[in-house]
């Protein structure tokens, strides 16, 4: 047969194969979404969001779960962001390129691939037992923080590396110190990409179940951690407290996991409704990341 015709057919074959694989992935996701939505949409209501879990499926809600998730995420972000961005800046801008830093780099890359349940075991041994934090918000937040830390370090380094060397040269050439160069030029230019990486890492952490179950987060909680700020009628009107950090907690994925494992039909409906909320949070976070990345790309063309 003519060589040209063979090449042409092969070309269309690969195109068709490519379309097939793409469609397959999207279809599976779509089926999952539709199935969950059909099951759980009827259960979504204000009541569902503002009720504590209950033995009766129709009265049960996810109040303690989503409040717990927000607590955990806040603690995780407060710990992982400064640590992760700080180490990335050091490794990328300051550290000498030698064997030791090479070893550190490989370790971080490997840590990013360690299964999350292992981090859960670490959290259980280190934070829950050794630091005696018990099954508290702080223990959960710390555990998720070390889980996302390697991912944040890697993505931040990538963002810093994307800033052209010529920008650094320009800064040094007008007499800037290293810190001024990093703080005034490199960091602002990389911020969009850093935030994108951080948000994606956090949106992964939102859905993490295994490490929280491993450290023994409770599944049935009928109270909320004490809020950090409370208001009262008398002087000084506002009260600050970190007691909430040491209160026990539950989180959305745990609540969902718990409901799925119950035999009653009503609870699996609740689980689907919970999944919709969790998917909504993840989707919202990812959208913010995409918008940030888009705006960054528009702003800077080197």
């Amino acid at each position, binding site marked *: 047969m003519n060589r040209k015709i063979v090449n042409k057919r092969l070309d269309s074959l690969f195109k068709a194969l490519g379309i097939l694989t793409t469609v397959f992935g999207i279809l599976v996701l779509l089926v999952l979404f539709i199935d969950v939505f059909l099951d759980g949409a009827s259960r979504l209501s204000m009541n569902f969001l503002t009720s504590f879990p209950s033995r009766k499926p129709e009265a049960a809600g996810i109040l303690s779960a989503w409040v717990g998730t927000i607590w955990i995420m806040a603690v995780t972000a407060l710990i992982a962001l400064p640590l992760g961005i700080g180490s990335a800046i050091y490794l990328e801008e300051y550290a000498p390129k030698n064997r030791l830093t090479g070893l550190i780099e490989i370790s971080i890359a490997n840590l990013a691939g360690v299964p999350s349940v292992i981090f859960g075991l670490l959290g259980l041994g280190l934070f829950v037992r050794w630091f005696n934090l018990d099954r508290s918000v702080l223990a959960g937040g710390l555990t998720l923080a070390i889980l996302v830390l390697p991912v944040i370090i890697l993505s931040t380094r990538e963002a810093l590396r994307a800033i052209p060397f010529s920008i650094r040269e320009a800064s040094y*050439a007008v007499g800037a110190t290293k810190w001024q160069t990093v703080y005034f030029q490199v960091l602002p230019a990389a911020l969009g990409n850093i935030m994108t990486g951080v948000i994606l890492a956090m949106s992964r952490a939102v859905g993490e179940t295994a490490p929280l179950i491993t450290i023994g987060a409770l599944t049935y909680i009928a109270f909320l951690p004490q809020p950090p700020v409370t208001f009262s009628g008398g002087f000084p009107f506002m009260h600050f407290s970190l007691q909430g950090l040491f209160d026990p907690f539950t989180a959305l994925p745990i609540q969902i996991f718990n409901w799925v494992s119950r035999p009653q039909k009503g609870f699996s409906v609740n689980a689907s409704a919970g999944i919709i909320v969790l998917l909504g949070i993840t989707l919202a976070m990812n959208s913010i990341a995409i918008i940030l990345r888009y705006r960054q790309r528009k702003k800077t063309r080197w």
Partner: protein
Amino acid sequence: MNNVAFNITRMRASYGNKEVLKGITITILPNSVTALIGPSGCGKSTFIRSLNRINDLIPSFRISGDILYRQKDIYDQETDVVELRRRIGMVFQKPNPFPKSIYENIAYGLRIHGFTIKETLDEIVEASLKKAALWDEVKDNLKQNALTLSGGQQQRLCIARTLATQPEALLFDEPCSALDPISTAKIEELIHHLKKSYTIIIVTHNMQQAARVSDYSGFFLLGELVEFGKTQDMFTAPKDKRTEDYITGRFG
């Protein structure tokens, strides 16, 4: 002796094991333009990048010899590199404005050196842009992102940014190699004007440019300074056979 800007003796430089400058001895006079020419890889960029110690950023870079600016050793332990780079400004091959507003590009150098009063900043930004012959083109949109300017405008912005911190000497590392002929002509004219107040060294691949803008010329070849002298002399009656071959286009 007082009337000498750079006084360099037996300067050797290398990246790792690769020696790129093999004993350069040269004297550069203030308020003049010195052009350095030579084929790619001859060490002229390394030479100019050593004068404000910007090559310190490259870990494998090593340098030796007496490299004096105004009788002070540039590579002395005591040398304040930040102050040195403020006094000896540099404009790079590819325009490299910060991804910020035109105003901020120039104000940055001032801010990091402690200028904070807004009126002073405004004044110096305007003066610098005027000196760099860019003011009329950008005065109405100083808040605009510098990356939206054309290549030639960006390069003049980089020159303005360098002028803002009141340097004494200016190093140009092939400033026109990424620009079109019209922008190139503007920058050359600018260099001609700046000569009155600054010591200028320019590395260029373009021999016509060297002949047009400079008072003194140096010809680099394989890490050595083959010939150095008045530009007019060098281009009309080169002393060295290799210089003659190069400027008449027989190699390089």
